[in-house]
Every structure is written in structure tokens, then in C-alpha cells.
């Protein structure tokens, strides 16, 4: 009898702990193969690094992971989102990087009330409720890339971006930003995605332009920068830092020198949080983190902080997303919070690609401490000096 009582007591004492110990199921749904495979893998690795540093727990609960590859195909992304939500019954989701995939799974995830942290940059993906973004919003950042060279004093711009959604948006908002800063656009070029030879594009560059504003990605970005350098052009280049992403710099080499732009994360940001993050990431994966890896890590921080607020509870989805919305963080990218649309409000770092200690890298020249994710003239600090 006494032993039974003891057992009951013990159970009573242990059960809240046992409840808190029940694992939280986290789905990762991103691009793990195909052209965006390296970026999606970086996002996953950033998230895994956060878990590793935190004893594989989010808000005190051990984490059970289910990882799925979208293969860069929205149809696959939808099918696997259904699998994660209905078959694996994950509690939260770390979502895709590719905008098309983000757009494709959005409606379904919202209908499932699935708290989701993703990195797809196309504006429509966030819903202000369940879908959060840890990277940046395409429109606002395109506007910024157009605004900065205008602010630096350039007056006539030529714009180059590949002819698909993100490229067309980039061109629109480059122009809006550049015009708002007092410049005029003299030429817009939209080569096809996967242009094998940029010779024909670059040899058309107007000599009236005093700056080029560029968005290229992946293989296109390498070919574009290399060909541009081969032609010996002296046109200064601004634009999306994806064009000279840190994963591309080893291939681009000296061809990337002088490219300027603003981004939310570079491995060369000089802050205690980032130095630690870079050291940990290098130790785990033998390479520098890029912006998508930082985004994955921040996703871990967001979920960790929100689940701490809810004492590890994830059943009440509305309470969980409210807690996510309220997070205030210091991330490797700086101070972090969400706006009403679940877009991140975090700093922007203005950088130029330079050679330091015979290593080609983004050199941070200044920062915009709090960049509101809106397509309007940003509040630039007075001391910000832009490359001209």
C-alpha cells in the first residue's frame, strides 16, 4: 500500500515533467537538391546548428525532426507539405527558400494553421498570422538596392536582372528606389534565366550610364560577373548581394571586386553574436555561413524563444504564433523582431566586395540599424558613407 502510494506520488510529481519532455515535432521543408540545393542545405544546417547549441531542445522540449526535400518543384513542395502536416503531424515547420515553393505552399499551410518560419522572399508569402520570414522581403530590399546608388550620387543607371518573377520585381523596385533618390534609369536589360553567354548582354551596355544595378543568382551570377570583368568595363556595380554571394565569391574571384550593396547578413559582420555563430558554423560544416544559413539559425532562435514563452506548449497554435510574433532577439544579424506582416525588422549592412589579407570578401562599410521592410525611402544614418 505504501509502495503504491509512493508510486502514485512519484507519478504525480513526474508527470508535468514527462509532459514537458514529450518531443515537439519540427518539419523542415526546403530545397535540398537541384540548383538551389546548396542554399536550402545551408538553411537546414543553420537550423540544425541552433538545435545542436541548445541541447536539441526548443523551449525545453526535445525536438523530433522530419526533413523533406522539395527538389525545387512547387508540386512536390505541396505534396510534402501535406505529408508533414497530415501524416507526420508536425507542430511547426521550417519552410522553403525558393519563392515559387513558398507561394505554392502558403495557402495550404495557412489552412492548416501551421506555424511556419521560411526564407522565401516574395512578398505575398507572409500572411501576418502563421507564416513568418527570417530573411528579407523582395520588394523592400530591391527598392533599397535602387535607392542606395542614387543616394551615393549616381544619376544614370542601367538595370540588369533575369527575366522571371523575382528579376522583374527587382527591376521595378530598383527603378522606384533609384528615381526616388533623384536618378533616372537609362536602360533595362532582362536576359533569360540561365543565359549561357552574357557577352551579347554586356556589349550592349549604354555608355550613358554611370552605375549598373544588378540582380543575378547562382550560375548566372558567376557567368555575369566573370564576363563583365573580361570585357574590362569600368562601370561601378551596385545591386542585390546575392549576385556576389559568399558561396559564389571563390568562383568569381577578382571579378567580384568593387560590387556594392546592402544585405541583412554577411559572415564578416563584426559583432560578438556573429563571431560566435561563424566560429560554430565553421567548426560544424567547414565553411562560412551565408545569409540563408543565418536565416535557418534565426528560425531556430524564433521558435526557441516563442516556445519558451509558451512553456513549451505548441497545441494552442494561436498562442504559439502570438508568441512568435512578439519575439525580440539578438541574432548573428543583429537586433530582430517582426512587423505586422511577419516580415523581419533587422539591420541592413552596406558592403563592398574588397580584397583584405589577399582574401576576397564582403567588407561591411556601415549599417542601417533598423530597416523597415517597406518599399519607401529608408531612414539612413547620417554617417553612412556609400561607395562612389
Amino acid at each position, binding site marked *: 500500500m505504501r509502495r503504491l502510494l509512493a508510486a502514485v506520488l512519484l507519478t504525480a510529481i513526474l508527470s508535468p515533467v514527462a509532459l514537458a519532455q514529450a518531443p515537439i515535432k519540427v518539419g523542415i521543408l526546403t530545397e535540398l*537538391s537541384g540548383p538551389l540545393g546548396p542554399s536550402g542545405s545551408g538553411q537546414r544546417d543553420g537550423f540544425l546548428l541552433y538545435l545542436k547549441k541548445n541541447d536539441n531542445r526548443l523551449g525545453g522540449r526535445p525536438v523530433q525532426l522530419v*526533413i*523533406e526535400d522539395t527538389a525545387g518543384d*512547387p*508540386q512536390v513542395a505541396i505534396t510534402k507539405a*501535406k505529408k508533414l502536416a497530415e501524416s507526420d503531424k508536425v507542430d511547426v515547420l521550417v519552410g522553403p527558400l525558393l519563392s*515559387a515553393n513558398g507561394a*505554392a505552399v502558403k495557402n495550404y499551410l495557412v489552412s492548416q494553421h501551421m506555424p511556419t518560419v521560411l526564407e522565401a522572399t516574395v512578398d505575398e508569402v507572409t500572411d501576418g498570422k502563421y507564416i513568418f520570414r527570417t530573411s528579407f522581403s523582395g520588394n523592400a530590399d530591391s527598392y533599397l538596392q535602387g535607392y542606395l546608388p542614387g543616394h551615393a550620387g549616381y544619376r544614370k543607371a542601367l538595370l540588369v536582372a533575369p527575366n522571371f518573377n523575382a528579376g522583374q520585381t527587382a527591376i521595378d523596385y530598383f527603378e522606384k528606389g533609384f528615381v526616388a533618390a533623384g536618378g533616372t534609369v537609362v536602360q533595362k536589360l532582362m536576359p533569360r534565366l540561365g543565359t549561357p553567354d552574357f557577352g551579347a548582354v554586356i556589349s550592349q551596355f549604354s555608355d550613358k550610364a554611370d552605375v549598373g544595378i544588378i540582380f543575378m543568382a547562382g550560375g548566372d551570377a558567376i557567368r555575369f560577373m566573370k564576363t563583365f570583368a573580361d570585357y574590362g568595363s569600368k562601370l561601378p556595380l551596385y545591386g542585390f548581394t546575392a549576385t556576389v554571394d559568399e558561396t559564389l565569391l571563390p568562383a568569381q574571384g577578382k571579378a567580384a571586386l568593387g560590387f556594392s550593396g546592402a544585405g541583412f547578413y554577411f559572415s564578416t559582420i563584426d559583432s560578438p553574436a556573429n563571431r560566435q555563430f561563424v566560429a560554430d558554423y565553421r567548426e560544424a560544416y567547414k565553411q562560412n555561413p551565408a545569409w540563408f544559413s543565418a536565416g535557418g539559425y534565426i528560425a531556430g532562435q524564433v521558435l526557441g524563444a516563442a516556445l519558451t514563452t509558451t512553456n513549451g506548449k505548441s497545441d494552442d497554435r494561436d498562442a504559439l504564433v502570438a508568441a512568435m510574433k512578439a519575439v525580440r532577439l539578438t541574432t548573428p544579424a543583429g537586433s530582430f523582431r517582426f512587423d505586422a506582416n511577419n516580415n523581419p525588422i533587422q539591420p541592413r549592412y552596406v558592403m563592398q566586395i574588397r580584397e583584405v589579407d589577399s582574401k576576397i570578401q564582403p567588407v561591411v562599410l556601415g549599417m542601417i540599424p533598423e530597416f523597415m521592410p517597406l518599399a519607401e525611402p529608408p531612414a539612413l544614418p547620417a554617417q553612412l558613407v556609400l561607395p562612389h
Partner: protein
Amino acid sequence: MNPHLEATGTRVRRPLWTDRSRTIRLLAAVAGIVLVVLAASTLGSYPVELITQVLIYALFAMSLDLLVGYTGLPSLGHSAYFGVAAYAAALCSLKLGLPFWCAAPVGLLAAVVTALLFNLIALRTARGYYLMITLALAQVLWSIAVSWTDLTGGDNGLSGIARPVIGRPLEGAASYLWFVALVFTVSAMAMWRIVRSPFGQALKGIRENEPRMRALGYETWRYKLVASLLAALFAGIAGECFLYLNGFVGPSSLAVALSAQVLLMVLMGAAGTLFGSMIGAAVFVVLQNIVSSYTDRWLFVMGAIYVLFALYAPAGALPWLRERWARYRNSVGGNT
């Protein structure tokens, strides 16, 4: 003799393969599908979704088999018809607000017209070129889908297309599976009739020896064109089934990768058998959705499976299984 049947070695025709038993087997297949759907309906929604996809891909692959296996026209641009039908139906319902009963036929018409335009060029070309020219033409459509963002939504595609309402809305995964199973069965039976008809026999004749068919007075060009239009029609049906599955269509529905995958389903299952494609479709869906959950190297596994099939079952999975089955029967029950 068809070279890829030759590879299976001598297959003696047994009474098992008579016309009557073909009908019986067809009925058995239909019953099998009904059973599978019934069993699937009791499972969770994810397995139901995968079985739905298998049926859609199988239908798509069977439509390509009309060209590859029966007419001897290997196409690497078959996604064009799949995608065009889906896009056209999606645009009809999103931009024009047409109901399913109008949008779906318009989509199919678009697929058939596309096939007509493509094949006016492609069928002129010499043997061996058909593969490449269909690839290039399909690529043109893909490019348009990616870059004409105002119309097609670019690589974000078109989403939010509601499922058809037949009596009641086909909202749940299981009720949509029933719908797809019905469409699949009707289409498969129609294709079966086509390949068994004199028209189908003429197609096989063209595959085996086109000059001889021409000498016999057949206008082979016209036969090939009609086969292409029929193939496009059924590919379009598959494309629309896929559209309503997720309410979404994007450029991946027009991509070369999809054309290559569906060609692989046909070749792996067995070209020229129609139902072999079901095996190819099932293997593909399992690899893409289930194997990929366990290994990052799933593309390697997929490639290796194709290589092994090419080497050890060059005529495809279905004849290979039949041969095994025949051997087993022979060893068990003698020659009956």
C-alpha cells in the same frame, strides 16, 4: 519484329493471351483499381494523395505510350500537352471565371491544338529528330510560362483553382481519388480500345515498317498526326487532374524534367503495353516521395534503378514480370 520485344527472347503466345482473356484481364484490372481505391480510402490522406498521383502519372505515361510504344515516335516534349491543358483550364477559371465544365474542355482543346501546331513541324522531320524537336518546342512553352508573368504568374505559377463540383465538392483527398480513378479508368479503357482497333494496328505497322505501310496505301503521316493529337488529349486530361489535385500549376508542369520522367515511366514499365506505364509511375512516385525522405541520394538511387532496368529488363518491367510468371507457371504446372 519490334526490337524491344525481341530482347525478351522468344515468347510463345499461349492461349492465355487470347482476346477473351484480355477482356477478362481488363475487367480484373478495373476491379483491382476499385479495390485499391477502397483500401486506400481507409488510409490517411497522405497515402491517398500518393495513390492519386500514381494514377495521374500512369494516365500521363499511357498517353505517351501511344506515341512511343505504339507509333514509334519517342517524344521528349510530352509535358507540353500536360502543362498547356492545366494552364489553359486554370486561366479560364481564374481570369474568365468559367466553371469546371467549361474550363476543362477548353484546356483539353488547347492541348490538342498545341499538338497540332507542334506536329506540323515535328512530324516532317526524319527518324531520330522527333525526340529533339519535341524537346525544343516544349522548351519554348516553358520559357513563355516563366517569363510572361502577367499571364502565367511566372515561376510562382497559378494557384487557388477550386476542385470540380460533381454532385458535391470533391474536397477530401479520398473523394478526389475516386474522381481520378473514374477518369483514369474511362481514359485507360478508351486508349485500350484505340490500340486494339484497326487504327491502332496501323500505328503498330508504322512503328515496325513505315515504308511498307506507305506502299500498302496508308497515308502514314495522317495516322501519326491523329495519334499525336490523341496522345495530347489524354496527356491533357492527366494535366488537368494534376491541376485540380493541388489547385496549382507552375512551369514545372511544362518542364523537360517532367517530359524525361514520363518517358522513363513508359520505358521502365514497358513501351507498347499501355499498362506497363502504371509500374513506371508507381516506382517514380515512391522514389520521389518516400525514398527521398530517407536519403539525400535519392536521385542516384533513381538513376541506378533505371540503369538496372535497362540492362536486365530492357523491354520493361511488365514483360519481365510476365516472363517470370510464365516460367513459374511452367515449373509448377507444366504447359497449361
